[in-house]
């Protein structure tokens, strides 16, 4: 795998009015890396993802993706460049079928414009076929073929998480941002998820940046972990050193004096 820099973030800051959600945030991720982002509730993890995907604009700092400055880009521009994400609170196209959720995500990348569609030109029919084939590839990969015609809102939680991952893959990303993909999953489903992430990582040559509270997931699949606390980077390193880091332990368990009462 290449050693080129996929993502380079420098001095990122995000304020909401008076609230400083994130300050002095830096990270560099090389292509093909699988990096974890952890931290207590409200640490700013989702804010990082919102900034990277273009959902929010930073108040300071820069974001470079494969050498290109994308600091002020819109989410759709970032998606076309190859940044895809999932959401902590699942956001599917609820009334659409599972298959159409994935097809909708394929449209910006392989779909036809309005004229070609209405005039039903051969190019349009070809593109519909390619979209159909591609959607089946992802449905198959994520084990969603049996429910492909179900409206997404009817699926159980675990399957909805998978649809969201499938939809993100349909963007044909090189960087995949997963915001708490294991939240709400039972241990079996979590085990499946770990396998799925590993498979995707290899098969699609993905760079993956992952927010997760489930330490098992983080510790088993990430080669590097960054810890956020109250908008600051608290620590960064490999899983073993993070596990032993006293500041990380303190941030998670609260201050030593308060943990004495627990």
């Amino acid at each position, binding site marked *: 795998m290449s050693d080129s820099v996929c993502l380079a973030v420098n001095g990122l800051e995000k304020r909401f009015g008076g609230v400083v959600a994130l300050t002095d945030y830096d990270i560099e991720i090389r292509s093909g890396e699988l990096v974890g982002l952890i931290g207590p509730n409200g640490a700013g993890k989702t804010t990082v993802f919102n900034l990277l995907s273009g959902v929010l604009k930073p108040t300071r700092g820069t974001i470079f993706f494969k050498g290109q400055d994308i600091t002020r880009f819109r989410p759709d521009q970032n998606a076309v460049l190859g940044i895809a994400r999932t959401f902590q609170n699942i956001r599917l196209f609820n009334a*659409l079928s599972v298959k159409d959720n994935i097809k909708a995500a394929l449209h910006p990348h392989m779909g036809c414009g309005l004229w070609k569609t209405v005039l039903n030109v051969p190019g349009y029919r070809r593109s519909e076929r390619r979209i159909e084939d591609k959607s089946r590839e992802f449905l198959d990969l994520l084990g969603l073929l049996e429910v492909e015609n179900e409206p997404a809102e009817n699926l159980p939680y675990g399957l909805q998480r998978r649809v969201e991952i499938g939809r993100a893959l349909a963007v044909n990303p090189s960087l995949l941002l997963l915001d708490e993909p294991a939240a709400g999953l039972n241990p079996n489903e979590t085990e499946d998820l770990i396998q799925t992430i590993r498979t995707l990582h290899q098969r699609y040559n993905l760079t993956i940046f992952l927010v997760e509270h489930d330490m098992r997931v983080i510790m088993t699949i990430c080669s590097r972990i960054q810890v956020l606390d109250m908008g600051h980077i608290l620590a960064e390193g490999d899983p073993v050193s993070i596990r032993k880091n006293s500041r990380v332990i303190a941030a998670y368990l609260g201050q030593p004096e308060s943990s004495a009462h627990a």
Partner: protein
Amino acid sequence: MKRIPLHQIWYFVFVLSGAVFVFIARSTFNEYILSIINFVGIYIILAVSLNITNGFTGLFSLGHPGFMAIGGYMTSVLTFPVAKKAMFLELPGWLSHLALPFLPALLIGGVCASLTAFVIGVPVLRLRGHYLAVATLGFLIIVQVLITNWESVTRGPLGMNGLPALTHLWWVYAWVVITLYVSWKIKFSSYGRSMLAIREDPLAAQCVGTRLFRTRVVSLALGAFFAGIAGGLWAHLVTAITPASFSLVLAFHIVVMVVVGGSGSISGAFVAAVLFSTITELFRPLEESLDAYGIGEILMALILILILIYRPTGIFGTREPGFLTAKST
């Protein structure tokens, strides 16, 4: 040999029986019944096209009659006989000597409505939900005011009378078929899925690469095109056009059709349009004889309330009846 899919046979059956119906209707029914069937067709065009804007992309627009008025007036000015133009209107030179056949006049009317949608879309589509509804309502009122005051071209509140009676069943139902075809084609295409995705979750849609603003403008303009066509058909059916015809009440009628049919459902918009416009037209003579105007409206509002309580997603939800859609195997 390739087998023709069942749903395509159904489309064929519908279009053919429609054509047979139009053919028989024109030689059997009297003028009054024919005009009702014409109005029903125009309402189908209006509801099915508003369904593209409101139902597919989720833009709650009340501006449909505004686009209809633009198309209607444009078409009327273009088809108005040259002799009458000289008598009633003060048009710029080239326009006063021009009287176009119906089809080009209709198309120009539709395109003008559509262009207007692009122009107003830029400010209006930055708004969401209730704000968008209010802004499109504002647009509708502005159109009415402009038409009322631009007397040299529109004859103001008097409106234009004595338009050639060009609209008949073939015109109306050909446009019904075109409107249905276009929105059906879109709904079951990649482009349409991205419209529906915007309706379901704009942010998530944007994060998979959908160009929100552009897609929203296109869907407004597409709805506006057919509204403009419907306006032209309407004017040449009534053979008169006044600003008062394109009112908020009309907007209400069309929106109710879309909501009751099920936002996003083409079949729903179609069925609701047939149902409601038939009710309104049938109740009109009753209202007149009883001197009790508004029975139709009350009935419509009642049905709307009942649907919103007992079936908030409308008759069809966002779907189409199974036999009309291709089953992927």
